[in-house]
């Protein structure tokens, strides 16, 4: 007997079932009391504040965010590349004696990766106070571990025969390694690196919302006092910069790939890193940041064993974890399910372009902001947290899908359509089907990210581990902070393991390759 195996195409649509319970809860609590505020929010979009002070401080915030992102991006890429190479099986094949060291690096990197940059930030700010390096370090720690993972996975997926062959000719281990590895490493660094830069800007913005400065801080302050016109000034400026940056990176990348030979690409990437780093540093310096005052480490009373045991007893840990998992589950459903659903419901090239613009917008609005907006027309419950988290990541997933589809061969779609099928079913079988495996693989990775990000959404919605972390931090209860951070870390590592397994499954069955 053969088990029924779900087709991956339909699996891309199934997550959107998450909408059913969420919409039921949202509609049950729906009211129009906040309608005028929502209307104000929307109408403020077309009349952002042009007050000189507002524009000035938003512009300064934006510069801080970009410069900080630049520095953290370069450092995390460099560390990530080194750690990535060090955790490949490939690298240790040439020095087999120490191969357990490679495994050790690979697995221990799961810990820095499992904690969201905002949580790192909140912890470091407790130790080091207000220093611009706090933001940078908070980004660098998780990002370099993430970069290392992607790089080592990509490198290990290559054929190692040439390396063995070169080694057998008796050449130096390191030089043979560089000869084989470098040409493979550079394209990954180019594509993945530019993606990471956008992430870094998003990360620094989020850190700002939690008090580490830059445009995020401006956004949060304007939202806190419900000054929507001022908030839109920040949002539009951020949007504009993001679009320009994306355009610039894209054209720069295509220029490089057409004009630069492999040999030069190494020195080019080194120069890009050097230039970005010094640009970021001098930029922050000109913004009056004291970059060269050393980080101060203030003494913290580490909790005793008794305090930790007390913390375990006072925290409703089980309830918090369940809430966190539920939020992740529903948010992932929305994030993964919506883009394919919209694609099938509204097929066509024009609609695809419109969807692409919507996705950019959704990526831009930080989740804590969405939470407050959703709360204005529905009663508080777990769905609000899930929906606002889902919306941001829907923007990421949607972008990936539409980007891939715009670059994809249209032949299958045309063939199906010329057989007389409807536009919808032709889209389903001709456009979505070839994408679905890689999309699902990427989706599995996203769930991981969403799980980590519940750390910041709970803080605003008042639910889950994220909220408890804020509460414990603001009570300076280090025992509780330790327990919650550890719980988060464990949860994410478990999640990463589970989703990694399913991701590998979808990737192995995938028809087209991509880099997450």
């Amino acid at each position, binding site marked *: 007997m053969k088990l029924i195996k779900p087709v991956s195409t339909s699996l891309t649509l199934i997550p959107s079932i998450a909408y059913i319970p969420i919409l039921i809860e949202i509609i049950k609590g729906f009211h129009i009391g906040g309608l005028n505020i929502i209307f104000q929010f929307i109408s403020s979009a077309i009349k952002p504040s042009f007050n000189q002070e507002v524009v000035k401080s938003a512009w300064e915030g934006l510069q801080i965010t970009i410069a900080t992102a630049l520095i953290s991006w370069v450092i995390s890429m460099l560390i990530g590349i080194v750690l990535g190479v060090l955790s490949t099986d490939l690298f240790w094949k040439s020095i087999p004696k120490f191969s357990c060291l490679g495994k050790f690096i690979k697995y221990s990197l799961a810990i820095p990766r499992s904690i969201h940059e905002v949580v790192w930030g909140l912890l470091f700010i407790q130790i*080091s106070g207000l220093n611009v390096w706090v933001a940078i370090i908070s980004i660098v720690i998780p990002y370099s571990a993430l970069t290392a993972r992607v790089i080592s996975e990509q490198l290990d997926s290559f054929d190692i025969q040439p390396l063995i062959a070169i080694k057998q000719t008796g050449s130096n281990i390191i030089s043979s390694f560089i000869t084989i590895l470098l040409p493979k490493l550079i394209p990954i660094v180019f594509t993945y690196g530019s993606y990471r830069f956008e992430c870094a800007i998003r990360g620094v913005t989020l850190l*700002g919302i939690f008090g580490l*400065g830059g445009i995020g801080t401006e956004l949060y302050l304007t939202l*806190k006092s419900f000054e929507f016109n001022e908030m839109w000034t920040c949002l539009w400026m951020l949007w504009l910069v993001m679009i320009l940056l994306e355009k610039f990176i894209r054209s720069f990348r295509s220029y490089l790939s057409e004009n630069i030979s492999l040999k030069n690409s190494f020195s080019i990437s080194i120069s890009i890193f050097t*230039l970005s780093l010094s640009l970021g540093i001098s930029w922050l310096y000109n913004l009056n940041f004291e970059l060269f005052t050393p980080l101060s480490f203030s003494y913290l009373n580490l909790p005793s064993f008794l305090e930790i045991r007390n913390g375990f007893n006072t925290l409703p840990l089980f309830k918090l974890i369940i809430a966190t998992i539920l939020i992740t589950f529903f948010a992932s459903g929305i994030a993964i399910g919506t883009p394919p659903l919209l694609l099938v419901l509204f097929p066509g090239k024009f609609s695809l372009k419109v969807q692409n613009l919507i996705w950019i917008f959704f990526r831009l609005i930080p989740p804590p902001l969405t939470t407050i907006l959703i709360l204005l027309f529905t009663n*508080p419950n777990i769905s609000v947290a899930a929906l606002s988290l889902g919306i941001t990541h829907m923007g990421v997933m949607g972008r990936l899908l539409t980007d891939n589809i715009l670059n994809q061969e249209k032949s299958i779609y045309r063939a199906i359509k010329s057989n007389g099928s409807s536009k919808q079913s032709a889209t389903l079988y001709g456009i979505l089907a070839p994408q679905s495996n890689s999309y699902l693989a990427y989706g599995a990775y996203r769930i991981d990210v969403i799980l980590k990000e519940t750390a910041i959404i709970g803080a605003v919605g008042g639910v889950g581990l994220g909220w408890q972390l804020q509460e414990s931090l*603001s*009570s300076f209860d280090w025992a509780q902070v330790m327990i919650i951070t550890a719980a988060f870390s464990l949860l994410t590592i478990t999640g990463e393991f589970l989703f990694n397994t399913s991701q590998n499954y979808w990737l192995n069955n995938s028809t087209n390759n991509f880099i997450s």
Partner: protein
Amino acid sequence: MYQSSRGTRLIKLAISVLSISNLFFIGSLKAEDILYIGAIPDQNPEHLNRLYGVLSSELSEQLNVQVRYKPVTNYAAAVTAFRTGDLDLVWFGALTGVQARLQTKGSKVIAQRDIDEKFHSVFIANKKSSIQKINNINDLTTLKGKRFTFGSESSTSGRLMPQYFLSNASLQLQDFKGSRPGFSGSHDATLMLVQSGSYEAGALSEKVWKRNLERGRVDPSKVFVIWKTPSYHNYHWLAQGNLDKKFKEGFTKDLTNVFLSFNEKSKKQKQILELFSAKKFIISKNENYNQIEKVGREIGKIK
């Protein structure tokens, strides 16, 4: 072939020249003593920048030192920044001020506004809820089973004191609907969320309530005050204990006197007082916050 390699060489040259010139931007920092002031912001950035711009320049003029304002957005971060000595003088709320003072040896409350001596919170409710105006603290039990929200978790007037009065009326946090209160994040958010009906009731600073009334952002057909709390001490300026050593003998006293001398005759000082929505600053001391410390310990915000 020759062309293209010359092209890349030029690019490389340009990039390296730029990198090196970039590094030259970085000079050495002047080691001058600067008075760092900070505040926990409860207003929009435009307001804050105006406020601390004027305040910094006035303090600098009067005290003859460089003054720099460092914005902090997170309550806990402000406390830490004070503990680590990144800030010399901070405008704290009562709870965060006590937290910071307990963690920073020698620090000292120097001044507060006239209104901070008798600060109040208000409990507000949505008209559609069945909640009625109350006269007695014990009637706060009427909030049992309602959707209720505080402001930020570290706020004195938006969380600490309201929670204290609720517990005096023997109402616990798990008595609210969903067996937990919400935390809207700010006073304004509490007002908006109760006015919209998402929460049936909430508590916020009376000052913010009044400000919103004046600005016409309160819809009296939707939201109303059910109870005003008894008064308590709130915001204050907290100074590090080492300022005399850092600047000069008697500096802390001079600093306090500058605040106390602010009046409406000088244009700049009038602006400062207006932006702080105060008539004047008055002297204050650590002991004024003993009640807050006690409440903080009861509620678990101070360990």
